[in-house]
């Protein structure tokens, strides 16, 4: 019991340490002096131009108004709930896509026999723009969680699949040969050679997948949902609330940026061996 307790504190300490490293990393890499020299004038201009009447304030809400609206959305219109349901849809789609795309990509990159069977199919399906799937998905799956998750899945699946495939396929044959000489089985090769080699490609694919997945999330919520950020955005349009639309857009931008930062951190953690280069 005692030992378990110390273990848990250790785990918690580790989590806290990682979190602090993550956030200091974000702060150091993004909020630099150079960034603020660009960012602050833009904010000042954005605030000043509508207030001075250079651009109509009804069409361009200044940041102070957007901040007010954001607070109003947060307190009175359950913004957190909308963000939550959007993130649920997004992460379900992302998870399904990652869990399916990475193994298929590895198998296609590893084996010529499987590649010849599967790759042409994906190469024909992939160029179909994901939003083109929206009408048929609504008819087949109806409006609801499965449809939104499927559309996010479509956005994430192909970039992750092709990047994984490329990373595994491009493994230097000499690495494979040097493992085979020692008698490594194909399973060991996949686990210890192909996968570590493809890791940075996979993370890159997931990054692109996150961007495309967010696109598909908003598309799916705009046409087939009664909650979520995308729905809030469309509803704001119907009420001509530009300030709300801007607040929603900024929220989306923040979510995307934050997820990419998380992926960068994961990449550094996983591909530690590349850092020294």
């Amino acid at each position, binding site marked *: 019991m005692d030992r378990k307790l110390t273990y848990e504190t250790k785990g918690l300490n580790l989590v806290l340490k990682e979190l602090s490293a993550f956030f200091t990393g974000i702060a150091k890499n993004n909020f630099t002096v150079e960034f603020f020299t660009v960012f602050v004038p833009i904010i000042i201009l954005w605030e000043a131009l509508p207030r001075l009447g250079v651009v109509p304030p009804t069409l361009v809400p200044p940041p102070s108004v957007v901040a007010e609206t954001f607070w109003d959305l947060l307190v009175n219109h359950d913004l957190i709930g909308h963000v939550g349901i959007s993130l649920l849809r997004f992460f379900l789609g992302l998870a399904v896509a990652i869990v399916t795309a990475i193994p298929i990509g590895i198998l296609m990159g590893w*084996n*010529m*026999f499987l590649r010849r069977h599967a790759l042409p199919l994906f190469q024909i399906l992939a160029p179909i723009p994901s939003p083109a799937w929206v009408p048929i998905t609504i008819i087949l799956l109806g409006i609801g969680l499965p449809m939104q998750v499927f559309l996010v899945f479509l956005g994430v699946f192909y970039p992750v699949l092709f990047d994984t495939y490329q990373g595994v396929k491009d493994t*230097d044959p*000499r*690495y494979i*040969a*040097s*493992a*085979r*000489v*020692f*008698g*490594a*089985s*194909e*399973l*060991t090769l996949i686990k*210890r*050679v192909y996968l*570590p*080699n493809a*890791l940075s490609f996979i993370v890159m694919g997931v990054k692109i997948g996150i961007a495309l997945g967010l696109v598909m999330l908003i598309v799916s919520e705009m046409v087939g949902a009664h909650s979520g950020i995308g729905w809030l955005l469309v509803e704001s349009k119907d009420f001509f609330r530009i300030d709300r639309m801007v607040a929603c857009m900024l929220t989306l931008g923040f979510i995307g940026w934050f997820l990419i930062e998380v992926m960068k951190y994961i990449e550094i953690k996983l*591909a*530690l*061996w*590349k850092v*020294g*280069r």
Partner: protein
Amino acid sequence: MIEARKITKFFPVINPQGLAEGITAVLSVSLKVEEGEFVAVVGPTGCGKSTFLEIMAGLQAPTEGEVYIDGKLVLEPLPSTRKEIEIYQRKYRFLSPIANDLWRDIPKSDIAMIFQDYAVFPWMTALENVFFTLTLRRVPKGERSYLARKYLNLVGLSGAENKYPSQLSGGMRQRVALARALSVEPKIILMDEPFAAVDALAREKLNEDLLSIWQSMKKTIVFVTHDINEALYLADRVVVFSPQPGTVRNIIPVNLPRPRKRASREIGELRERIWQIYQYDATGEIIDYVI
């Protein structure tokens, strides 16, 4: 004992005119390497000596001929008739013939190979690289750390266990490769220009360390290099390859006692002799063909 019988390797390539063409990389090479022998293979660049080594390691199938290691066939030769090709393709349509097994590691205790570069995995530290082969050998977990450190010490890498290959110099990386090769306790070590990318001073040190390891552990070593001096300093026999297609041009025994001196007269004479063979092959002129 390694016995290569009439190894021929033929590659189809596309020539600059866009036409299919054949290149014979290795032509009818027979070579016998006795147990505990140190054989060096030299030859001009692109003469197929690396291909020959990979065929001996079982990483490429020969077009013709067989390699036997202790009387055991390494890889069956490629098919030649249309019917044979069909059978071969059906047999290996899922897994390539050089793959070991789908699920099970089959540790090869008879052979280890060291490449010029890309030999150690950059995503593993020096220690993990040795762990990799120890795991393949199914060494129990408790002994791995001790054994890995032992082999790293043997090649003079104590203190660099937890460094990634990118943090090591070229010479140290090859030392990791050597430790990894030794860790499987092989009878035969095949080395494919292992020290070509290492600076001259580090190479001399590596040569000496390799010799002392070879003398103390009684391994059979086949050492491919393009450096005649290195070959003469290390080997019992030097196999000279001709330019493409690679054939055995000459086998020169180096009956000099060890430790040898790099600048000694005997080595100088042998080097001159090999150099003349090179010259003759390149230009067709006999310069001073005394021997």
